[in-house]
């Protein structure tokens, strides 16, 4: 169980400023919930690099290679025929299928890795019970901080959030 402080802001700039202030005093920023991507906050979270592009690259090339092998096997080994002396392995003509299939499989791998990295689909999440969290998908910006253990720390964070113009602060157990 982690005790979390949720602070709601009216725009992304205030949220970013609050997150910066919290970090500068060594409070841990757990996550931010926003109606559209706010890049400055994402940078503050120190997230590990995403594997989405890597998975897409590997998946795409693997699928393209498999498609080419299928073409080569069927045209040069399983059913070879000589049409006017044209090469059995006609690589320029064979390029389109691996290309199209490679892109398709790369996109499927991308979505698969996206779901793996985000933990979706997960239809319910404890934060959904927080007050006003349904506004996050609309126009609210919510910052999630780990609640400090000490009373002093808690007071300090509360002052910090109020200074940063938080509209609503709530505690929640995750």
């Amino acid at each position: 169980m982690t005790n979390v402080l949720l602070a709601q802001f009216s725009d992304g700039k205030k949220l970013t400023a609050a997150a910066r202030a919290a970090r500068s005093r060594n409070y841990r920023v757990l996550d931010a919930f926003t109606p559209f991507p706010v890049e400055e906050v994402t940078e503050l979270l120190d997230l590990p690099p995403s594997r989405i592009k890597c998975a897409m690259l590997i998946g795409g090339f693997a699928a393209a290679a498999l498609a080419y092998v299928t073409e080569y096997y069927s045209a040069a080994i399983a059913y070879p025929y000589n049409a006017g002396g044209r090469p059995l392995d006609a690589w320029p003509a064979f390029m389109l299928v691996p290309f199209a299939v490679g892109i398709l499989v790369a996109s499927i791998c991308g979505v698969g890795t996206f779901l793996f990295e985000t933990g979706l689909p997960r239809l319910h999440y404890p934060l959904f019970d927080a007050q006003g969290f349904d506004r996050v998908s609309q126009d609210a910006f919510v910052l999630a901080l780990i609640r400090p253990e000490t009373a002093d720390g808690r007071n300090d964070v509360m002052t910090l959030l109020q200074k940063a113009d938080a509209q609503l602060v709530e505690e929640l157990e995750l």
Partner: protein
Amino acid sequence: MTTATMTGGYVAPAADEHWTVPPAREPDAVNRLVSAPLLESSLWSWRTWWIGVAVSSALTAVMAVCIVWLFIKGIGVWGVNSTIVWGFAIANYVWWIGIGNAGTLISSMLLLMRQKWRASTNRFAEAMTLFAATIAGIFPILHLGRPLYFYWLTPYPNTMTVWPQWRSALIWDFWAILSYILFSIIFWYVGLIPDFATIRDRAKTPARRAIYGAMALGWRGSARHWRAYEILHLTLACLGVPLVVSLHSVVGMDFAASLMPGWQETIFPPYFVVGAMYSGFAMVACLAALVRWGFSMKALITVRHFEVMAKIMLVAAIIMGLSYATEWFTAWYGGEHSDRSLVAFEFTGAYWPMFDALLFCNVIAPQAFWFGAVRRNILAVCVIAVLINIGMWLERILIIWNTLSHDYLPSMWRLFLPTIWDWLLMFGSLGLFALMFLVFVRLVPIVSMHEVRRLVAEENAG
């Protein structure tokens, strides 16, 4: 944005940066405007929608009857003959797949070029892509004399030990369309996930909340999720551009890889890609006008959107004109008798009125877009866009009719006379498209809310 923005060496004027109009300049106003057709449907009288559904359902039923009749009697019900073996079916296929290209171009290419105005048009443009590409995919199967064997296009170990002919442009076609349709579904759905979450959180009935909630996969707008989403969306866009260009190049190659006069031209792949973009943008302009009118989206789809789309159509019209001229020039300059004779046939043969109409619709009429007043007049943009779509259809049908009616062997020269089944199937496919689009506007947010929210926030911050 108050400061001038550098876009590829061109410094955009700062005062001209807004792509939304005041009622939609607050994030929540965007949500309200876009979700209203789904969640507050009582705000509208749906009479026009129901009339649209009735007409398009009737046309879809006509299409179904045509297909059943075709399957019972064979392709003899069409006007095809032993000379013009590709009639309406392939022309319709090329026309629909062309329209199906613009959605991905708007979504991917304009995203990569940081064109912000795409935000309020990309969703229904992508829907258009999906529906048009699906309809396009039906026609090649219908035109097979034995459509039940269409699965022979796929490589699978079989007792006949035969395999697809990988050197054939028709096999490339199959793979390109299949990949494109599936890719478009993925790209479309990924972009929809955050918007389904918005609808989930605004929904008032438990059933809607459950359905949209399931579609949103539990999206909660976390910064981690947004980062993954952005990486995925941008990478998919990077893959979408070459895919869409290759798809229509392959459609061009269906013709260019043959040995026929008027088809065997190296210009075909790029010329087809531009033609596809052209007809697609024309269709997007028409749909944008319909969506704007039907759902009171004047604040999100502005006159400026029509102005930029008109500019794109104008550029495409010029490129199309140059392509036609290049074809005529190479036919003359190459000196090949059959090529020269084909060009003469285009201008003076049996189909000349259609050819002149094509040149008027595709090259001459869009020149009106040179005038700002025309570009800013939505009705004028729509009329010209419809003309462009008619012109592009004529172009596709004439590419087939002219070459096949007038190839190397004069004893084979014949004309194509469409039958009632050709026409019914074509108009039926328009009905199916309209029906899918009408259903789409009732079920899915027609404008990408999260992208417009971001646009509005950036514009307000500026």
